[in-house]
Each structure stands twice: as C-alpha cells, then as structure tokens.
C-alpha cells in the first residue's frame, strides 16, 4: 500500500466555497453522471497539477483511506 502524505491547507480560505461548488456540481445528476463528472474532474485536476510525482502522491494518499 502506498504511503499517506499529510497536506496542510492550500485552499487559501476558500474551502467552504470550493466544497459547496463540488456539491452543487452534482445536484440533479444520476449516480452514473456523478461518477463521470468526478472522473472528468480528476483528469482536469491531474492535468492542472501536471507533475507525475505529485499526482502519484495524491493518488497514494487517497487510496490509503480505502477500507
């Protein structure tokens, strides 16, 4: 299992706004549409980060909470 990294906040005080926007984006979507939206979002975010090492660390951290 990959290592979990602990991240300090990088949200610059806009956490509530971003979180609300995520919920808003899924409003009225079917489960399948929500999953697809999340997949697109992950792809877009990965591209914005653009650095394989950082993306791999994020994947490992997310995965470390499974189960």
């Amino acid at each position, binding site marked *: 299992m990959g290592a979990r990294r602990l991240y300090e906040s990088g949200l610059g005080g806009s956490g509530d706004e971003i979180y609300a926007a995520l919920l808003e984006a899924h409003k009225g979507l079917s489960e399948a549409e929500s*999953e*697809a939206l999340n*997949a*697109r979002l992950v*792809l877009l975010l990965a*591209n914005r980060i653009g650095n394989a090492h950082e993306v791999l660390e994020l994947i490992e951290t997310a995965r470390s909470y499974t189960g």
Partner: protein
Amino acid sequence: MPAYPYAEQPFIRPPELDGGRTDAPVAIVGAGPIGLSMAIDLALKGVKTVVLDDNNVVSVGSRAICWAKRTLEIFDRLGVGERMLEKGVTWKVGRNFHGRDEVYSFDLLPEAGHKYPAFINLQQYYVEEYLLERAREFPDLIDVRFLNKVTGHEDGGDGVRLSVETPEGTYTLDARYMLACDGANSPTRTRMGLDFSGQTFEERFLICDIEMKGSPFGDHDTPERWFWFDPPFHPGKSALLHKQPDDIYRIDLQLDAGADPEAEVAPDRVVPRLRAIVGDKPFRIDWLSVYRFRCMMLDRFVHGHVIFVGDSAHVVSPFGARGGNGGIQDVDNLGWKLAAVLKGEAPESLIDSYDEERRHGAEENILNSSRATNFMTPKTPAEALFRAETLRLAHDQPFARELINSGRLSRPCSLAGFPLQTPGGGPVVPGTAMPDAPLGGDWLISLVQGDFTLVGFGNVRLPAVPGIRRIGVDQRGDYPCHGDAEGFALGRYGMGLAYLFRPDGHVAAVFDAPTAAQVGAARDRALGRIPAMQEAV
C-alpha cells in the same frame, strides 16, 4: 495462405548426416526475422553461423506489418534497408477517432533530414524474403538449413550440443553458442522449463488483410494509421486500419472476450464488418486470423551458452508495433558483442550486458504495450469510466488527447546509464541510438554504424586510436570528412563535440577535447574490458 507466392525452400542434406562437421561457432534456432537478421549481422563481422528452421517457407500467414525507423536503420546496416523502404508503404500520420469524430492526430516524423521515415508497412513475408536473400549472399558464412528441427540441446559448459531432426535422419551439432530465435512459443524455453510470465488479455482480435483498389482513407489516398474507438460500424469496440504494399489493407477488429474464433472468421460474419469500413468497393480477403495477445518476458535472456533473442525472450501485444521492432534491436545489441567475444576482443561477460540492456528494452516495450492494450480493453467499470471520459474530453480538450492510447509506437530504446556507456553530456547523451543526418550525398547512420567510430562535429580534433574509425563533419582532418550543408548534423549533435559510437550506433561517450587515452578507455569500457565509471554528480 495469403496470395503472396511462397517459394518452398529446398532441403539440403546436412553434412553431419554423412559424418561431416561444421566449424560454425554459433547455431541459430529459427529463421524468422530475428534469426535471419542475427545471421547476417554476425556474417558482416566474419562470424560463421548455422541457421536451423523446422519449416521451409517464410512467415506463414500475415503477421507483422509496421517497421519502425530504428529497425530500418538497423536493416540499412545489414544491407536490406533500402530494399525494404522501396517496397514498403511509408506513413507517418496517425488519426484516432471516437465514434464518428476524429479526436486526435499525430505526425511521427515532422522534421526533414533522415534517411528513413518514421514507419513503413511491409508484410513480414517480404521482410523475411529479403533477409533470406541477403543471407544467401554469404554462402561461406551462413548455412541456412530448412526442414531441420531442433528437438533437444545440452549446454555442456563450454558449448551446446543440439539434436536436429530432418526428413533424412537425425544428427547432432556442436556450437559454442546457441541463439534461441525460435519465436513466441519457443521450444527451447519450454525444454529448459523457464518461467515466461506476464499478462494475457482476454479479448480476441480479428486480423484481416484485404486486397482492394482505391483508398479507404476518406477522400484522400495518403496512407495513414487510422484507429477507431467505438466506431459506428463496430459499436463498443475498437478497430485499426493500415495500408500495405500490393493494395493490401490490414484491418484489426476487437472482439468480445468470449468470441469463438471459428465463428468470427466465417464470411457471413466478416464481410459485413469489412463492408462497413471500406464501403461498397470490391475487395478480396487475403488472410484472416484471430489472436489473443500476451505481454510476457523471460527473467533472463542469457542462460550459459544459450541466448534468447526476439519473441522467444519477450512477447507483446501488437499495438505499438514493438514485437518485431524490439527483436531487431535485440539483434543489433547482441551481434557486435557476440562477435567481439568470439574473436577474443572482449571478455565473455560482455554478453551479460546484452541481457541487462535488452531486458530494459523489453520492459519498456511491455510497459507501453500493456498500457495501450489496457486502454483498449477496459476490465472494470472504473477503467471503462476513465476511458469514456478521456475520450469525451478529447473532442475539444487538448490535454485529454495525449491520454488516448491506441498504441505508443516503437521508439529506439535508450541505454543511458548502463555500465558500458561513459557518463557525460551533450545534446545526444550516451546510450542514445544515433539520430541520423544527411552528409553530402550520404547519411550519418550509413557511415557510422558497424564499427566503433569516432565522429567530430565542427571544431574538435579527433585523436588516432587503433581500431577506431574516424569521421569528421564540417571540419578538416587526415581522415574522411563530410560537409554539413544544411546544418542537420551540427544542429542535432552540437558544435565542437566528438562522439564515440558503438558498432550498433548507440552513443558510447561524448567529448569536447578528446585524447587518445580517453577515447580508448571509452571503447574498452564499451567492450567490458574495464569497469564501469561512476556517474559524476
């Protein structure tokens, strides 16, 4: 069989059946593209080989078609590159479609100044025919024996004894080295009980060659590589289209995991699918087969005096054309090393560097081929989801196009960082397969490959070192010098640098003011005579 006129090769009674012997130090099992290339490479270095094949025709059925630039450059050194280029269909643009829409296209060789194009398509039976004809130009060095099946072998520690079965009896053959070029189902590998592990893909693929006048490439007839995800004519699956010589087109169609191969090749099943791709133009089916693909390799390619080369050592799914192309790079890597060992110019341990360098190449090919095949054949809902959304985004998001994987096409493998190379810098780093450049009426790859060669680009003096050929580019010297009128060579290699190339055209070392001692040491390192140098940090 395809319409290609297969010539049956004669059985020639081997001398061993009448008490004779051969003094060839190398026995090659298998006269496929890899075994034949191996024999030619060794013959060019004066090494005698016996090539044994259980069959008597070139490639049965239609298999490989795409041959990469690096392979053509190696074939150039073997003396068959120009012939392949002339007969082959040159292409460099690939287009990926999703549904009805084109989502991504790529140009594999956007720049000029190379002798060979990014790719040609040429049926494997032609490749083997040309290699066989070339091998026959060395009657004193290459003894190709058709209908000679190797049924056993024994590595006695200083050489190998092979058991061979022929229509007129059996015999044994002794050789210092046995090269197992006996293909994906290598009987040598089975006999030795070696683990061949990796991934098998459940989906089956229907491979069709059809002969047709007129182009299926939309409104133009420039040969390209077209790949469809989920096309209207084959919903939910993928399809691939290539042009080959003789008006033959290759169409690959992905089938269901549980597809019945017999049923899939039935005309009432195949013809409507092909019609959906090529429209109502008349065509003739030349060859049909159904495959399941694997990505697997041996843990070691060198086992004492038995050396695995080509498909016997590693197999990949064909998306990316890394099977045959990878095998030809094996040949390129092993040929000069084996010849140097047999001539006493290098220690036997040099052969281990083949194992190390080419396992690295095979791993790279397997990684790329399995990623492409996984993209094409999603196995879980999550895999299918990411693929669907990647394809959806790719219609207008530039970044997503890069994620579409219909095969990452074979590229020359870099050997940077391996112990034979002398660490150093320059626009082309040690370990890289040499980039080509035009030099007057000639080409850099044709002038350099084959022997250890020191090339000076621009203002750099080349010391004389016995056994090392020297070539100057855009300079004067007491060795052959060539102009660089269009500036390609200096543009690619940099100004005022000298490069030492290995006989396989990979860069061994880069210098800015080389001394004879430095160049000699780099050559000795490449031959495994002196230890590796630690990378300077």
